[in-house]
């Protein structure tokens, strides 16, 4: 622990990377809570894969490799994806998970097609486009952190402003309707926020790991409370701790990659919460059942004696 603290004070790179991962952990945890409650948590996975196509399109159209331009392309494809998915599930009998799986495969396929197409163009500085998708936390720069923080603040403000509406549209659509709240709009808003979060996250965590950063903190937090605000706060704490610890472990042991280490920490939070959480956890539930059984037996025993 002291070693990590010392490293935090001395090493500039470590400070930048760890703060970046913590911020990302907090943002993904907050948005992930809504995604998990809406049962749309795998949407992030689909969008993350699809964004490869967006990155390539942005590069082909502009010929530049600056981060904001590439992210804008990814955002475009992300929005197209959620619109398509919403159309498919509203206008056919196809279920949500099939729709996102097909979306994932199709747009990732398009991404592959565009990548191989780019390889033929001579002289283009296309190297590193596919690395964008697999994520590289250790190459974080200070300007990336500013970028992540600004987006994070925008997302946070949106969530706080529409807290009540989002909450009602998630838990009770019919009630939202009677209050005159357009729950379709808020459902779309959440999907949109998921897209933004995933897109700023993939360059750090990579396609596969961003899914876990969305899901795991809120699943762990959910075991400790039934209140949405407490779950969100707890989830962001879990996200932040995992982000920091994952970076710290991979910094002290250079072979271990940062992204996967963060996921391992998050997964341990989930498994710990599922087993040990006081009310809902497996052990807690077992003890409760045991006590109840004992009480029932005691009651009947007494009757038998009398």
């Amino acid at each position, binding site marked *: 622990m002291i070693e990590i603290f010392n490293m935090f004070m001395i090493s500039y790179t470590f400070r930048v990377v760890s703060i970046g991962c913590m911020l990302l952990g907090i943002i993904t945890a907050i948005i992930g809570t809504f995604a998990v409650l809406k049962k749309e948590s795998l949407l992030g996975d689909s969008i993350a894969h699809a964004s490869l196509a967006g990155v390539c399109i942005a590069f082909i159209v502009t010929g530049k490799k600056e981060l904001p331009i590439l992210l804008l392309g990814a955002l475009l494809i992300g929005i197209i994806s959620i619109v398509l998915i919403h159309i498919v599930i509203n206008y056919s009998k196809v279920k949500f998970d099939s729709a996102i799986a097909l979306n*994932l495969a199709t747009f990732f396929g398009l991404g592959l097609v565009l990548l191989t197409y780019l390889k033929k163009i001579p002289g283009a500085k296309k190297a590193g486009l596919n690395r964008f998708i697999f994520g590289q936390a250790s190459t974080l720069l200070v300007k990336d952190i500013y970028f992540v923080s600004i987006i994070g603040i925008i997302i946070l403000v949106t969530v706080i402003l529409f807290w009540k509406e989002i909450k009602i549209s998630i838990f009770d659509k019919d009630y939202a309707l009677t209050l005159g709240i357009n729950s379709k709009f808020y459902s779309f808003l959440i999907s949109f926020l998921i897209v933004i979060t995933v897109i700023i996250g993939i360059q750090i965590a990579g396609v596969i790991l961003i899914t876990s950063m969305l899901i795991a903190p809120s699943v762990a937090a959910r075991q400790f409370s039934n209140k949405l605000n407490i779950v969100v706060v707890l989830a962001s704490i879990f996200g932040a701790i995992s982000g920091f610890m994952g970076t710290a472990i991979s910094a002290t042991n250079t072979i271990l990659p940062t992204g996967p280490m963060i996921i391992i920490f998050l997964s341990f939070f989930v498994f710990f919460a*599922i087993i040990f959480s006081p009310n809902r956890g497996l052990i807690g539930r077992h003890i409760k059942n045991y006590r109840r059984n004992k009480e029932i037996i005691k009651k009947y025993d007494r009757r038998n004696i009398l």
Partner: protein
Amino acid sequence: MSAGLIIQIIAILVGISCSTLGVFLVLKNMSMLTDAITHTVLLGIVISFFIVRDLSSPFLVLGASIFGLITVFLVEGLINTRLVKEDSAIGIIMSFLFSLAVILISKYAANIHLDVDAVLLGEIAFAPFHKITLFNRAIPKSILESSIILILNITFVVIFFKELKISIFDRNLAITLGMLPTLIHYLLMALVSITAVISFESVGAILLISFMIGPALSSYLLSKNLKSMIIISYIYSTICSLIGYKIAMILDVSIAGSIAVTIGFAFVLTLIYKNVVLERK
């Protein structure tokens, strides 16, 4: 046989064997579980590689398939605690096992030719070059493997057709009839894992997901019974493979990618046809 013909044959074989299983996955609402399996078999490949130390050993396939099953088992275990919803359970287990695999690779196998991208992306264009000799004739390994898988999958579906059908549409009836729907479910998932592992080398994870879900979804829109759904999905996957291959040849781009795009496009066309043309009648 020319390389182009071999690639088309492999694509069609893999496509048909994937859509045989895909129909059931779509009907059971487990499409994203395919995505999870295609990622987590990486851990199986890594761990069995540490045991046998040989990248071309058949034990790799066995180990990877077992990990596909372990994934299904863990996901269902999480769901059965009733603390986690299905989609979250898939997400958690998938990323956890995948992270373990990446960590193991970077810690112990950094010098070995075991690339994450290579496993996930795959390249069908290289499939004709791996040949094995059978009855004194050199046959591409992928054609042999995918035919075996195809026969295996179709045999399974033909033998257990009634059981599969009842356990999908009315699980309780299947239990009362003594059909062991859980066993059928795990057999199906075992076949999905084996198909995924075998087809990896030739077509890659993404085309695999596309083949499993896409044709089945398109025929789901058009058909009203299970048999016609399976047959229409065969037609879809064959036509899409051929068109996708042609497009890839004309534009000189990734074959797997262009087949995946064609399958997605075919679904969109079917959806439009269904909603615009059929609804108007």
